[in-house]
C-alpha cells in the first residue's frame, strides 16, 4: 500500500534572463525563485491497483515518482510504501520496487541486453532459480527471445522499452513505477507495452503507478486517475467520473486542464 499525506516539496532555481546586459548583470548578482513542485499532496493506492498519474509538464509528476522511489526527500508530510519510508532506508526500499524512466535507459549501450540483465541479477542478489524463472516468464510475455543477444544500441525504441520493462521486473517487485513508459513509441510497441503491464498486474497483483501524456494509456490501463497541476492534486477518480457523453478522452482531459487552469 502506498500513502502520501500532505507531502510538499519546493526547489530554488536561478533565474536567467536573455540579453547581453542581463548576462553581464548576472555575473555579479543572481536572483533565485522558489518553485513549489508539490503542495500538500495526499493520496492512497491499494495493493494491486493500477493508477494513472496525469498532469501537464512541470506539474509535479516526476517529483512524486522520485519521492516514492526514494530518490528525493520531501520537505514535509508523510510517505509510506508498504510500511517503509522510502527516503529513510533507501536500499531496503528499492529492493521491493521497480522503476522505469521512459526517457532514460538502464541498459548498457554497447553490450547484449542479457549481459545487463546478468548484472542486475547480481545487483539485486536474485537467486539463480528465481532469476531463471522470472527471465523465462518475461521473455515469453514481452517476446524478448530475439532481442536478448543484441546490443542495446541496435534495438529500436519499442524493443528497448520492452527490455527496460523486463529489466525492472527481474527481481519481481510488488510495486512498479513507470515514468512515461510509452513516450516516443510506435503504435504496435505501445499496444505491446500496455498489454504487458495489464497482464503483469493481473498475474502478479503488481501495483502500478504510471505517468503519461498519452490518454490512450490511461484508457487501456487504469480505472483510476489522479490529476496533478501546479503541485496540487486536482482530481482523484475514475475515468467514468470525468467523461461526458461522446467526448474522446483527449478532449475530456484537455477540458479538465482548462477548467483547472493548469
Amino acid at each position: 500500500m502506498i500513502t502520501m499525506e500532505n507531502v510538499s516539496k519546493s526547489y530554488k532555481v536561478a533565474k536567467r534572463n536573455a540579453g547581453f546586459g542581463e548576462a553581464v548583470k548576472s555575473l555579479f548578482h543572481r536572483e533565485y525563485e522558489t518553485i513549489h513542485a508539490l503542495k500538500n499532496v495526499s493520496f492512497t493506492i491499494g495493493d494491486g491497483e493500477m493508477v494513472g498519474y496525469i498532469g501537464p509538464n512541470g506539474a509535479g509528476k516526476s517529483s512524486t515518482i522520485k519521492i516514492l522511489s526514494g530518490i528525493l526527500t520531501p520537505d514535509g508530510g508523510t510517505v509510506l510504501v508498504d510500511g517503509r519510508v522510502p527516503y529513510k532506508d533507501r536500499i531496503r526500499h528499492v529492493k521491493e520496487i521497480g522503476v522505469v524512466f521512459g526517457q532514460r535507459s538502464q541498459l548498457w549501450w554497447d553490450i547484449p541486453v542479457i549481459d545487463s540483465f546478468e548484472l542486475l541479477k547480481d545487483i539485486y542478489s536474485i537467486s539463480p532459480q528465481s532469476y531463471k524463472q522470472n527471465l523465462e516468464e518475461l521473455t515469453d510475455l514481452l517476446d524478448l527471445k530475439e532481442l536478448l543477444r543484441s546490443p542495446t544500441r541496435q534495438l529500436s525504441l519499442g524493443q528497448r522499452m520492452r527490455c527496460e520493462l523486463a529489466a525492472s521486473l527481474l527481481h519481481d517487485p510488488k510495486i512498479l513505477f513507470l515514468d512515461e513508459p510509452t513516450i516516443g513509441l510506435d503504435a504496435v510497441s505501445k499496444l505491446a507495452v500496455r498489454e504487458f503491464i495489464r497482464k503483469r498486474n493481473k498475474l502478479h497483483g503488481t501495483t502500478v503507478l504510471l505517468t503519461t501524456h498519452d490518454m490512450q494509456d490511461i484508457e487501456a490501463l487504469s480505472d483510476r486517475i489522479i490529476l496533478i497541476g501546479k503541485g496540487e492534486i486536482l482530481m482523484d477518480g475514475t475515468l467514468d467520473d470525468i467523461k461526458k457523453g461522446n467526448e474522446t478522452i483527449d478532449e475530456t482531459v484537455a477540458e479538465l486542464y482548462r477548467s483547472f487552469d493548469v
Partner: protein
Amino acid sequence: MKSGFTIRKYQSFFRLRFVMGLQYRAAALAGITTQFAWGFLAIMAFSAFYETDPAAFPMSFQDTVTYIWLQQAFLALFNTWMLENEIFDTISGGNIAYELCRPIRIYNMWIARSLANRFSRAVLRCLPILIVAFLVPAPYRMVLPPDVPTFLLFVLSAVLGTSVATAFCMIVYGLTFFTISPQGVRILFASLVDFLAGGIIPIPFMPDGVRRVMELLPFASMQNAPLRIFTGSLSAQETARMLGLQFFWLIALVLIGSSLCRVAERKACIQGG
C-alpha cells in the same frame, strides 16, 4: 548589401557565443583559479631551476616570469586543445545535416564560433590573472613591455596567434569527418601540439637544435611569438621574422582547413551525414 548581410550572420553567432560565455561566471572564476595556480607552480619550478644554475637560463628570469603569466592569462586565446565538444557531436551524431541546410559555409560558421568562444573566455579571465601577476612580490612579478610600439606589435602578434590556433582547430574538426575516432584524434593532437607550441616548456628552454626546428613550425606561431615579443627583448629582425612566419602559417592553415571542410561538406552531402 549581400556581404553586409553575411557578416551580420557571423556577428550574431559571435554575440550568442559571447553571451553564453559570460553567463558561466563560476566557470570563469574556476578557470582563473586554475590558471593562476598553474602559473604559480610553473614559476616556482623555474625559480628552483634558476637557483640551481642561473647561467643555463636562455632568457632573463624576469622575461620567463612574464612569459608564463601571459601564457596563463591568455590561455583561452592561444591553446589548441580547447576544442568544442558540440562541434564534434555535430559531426559524429549526424546533426551536421542541419548545419548543411543553413545558407552558410560550415568553415566560416565554425571559425566565427570558435573565435567568439576564445574571446569571451579570454576577456573574463585575463584581467584578474594579469592584476594578480602585477601585484605579486618582485622576482615573480610580471613586467610591462618597454614601450608602446612593442606593445602594439604584441597585440598584432596576439591577434595572429589566436587566428593561427583557431585555423589549426578547424583542421582538426575537418579531419574528424574522415575518422571513426574523433576522441582519439583529438587527444593525440592535443598533447603533441601543446608540447610543440611551448605549452609544457617554453620553446626558448628547448635545446638549440630542437628549438630552431620548433620555431619554424606553425605551433610556434600560436603563443610563442606574442609571448616573446611582449617583453621587448627580441631584436627587430627576430620580431619581423616571427610575425612573417605567423602570416605565412595563418594563410597556409586557412587554405588547408577550408578546402578540407569543402571536401567534408561534399562527403557529408553524399553520405547523408
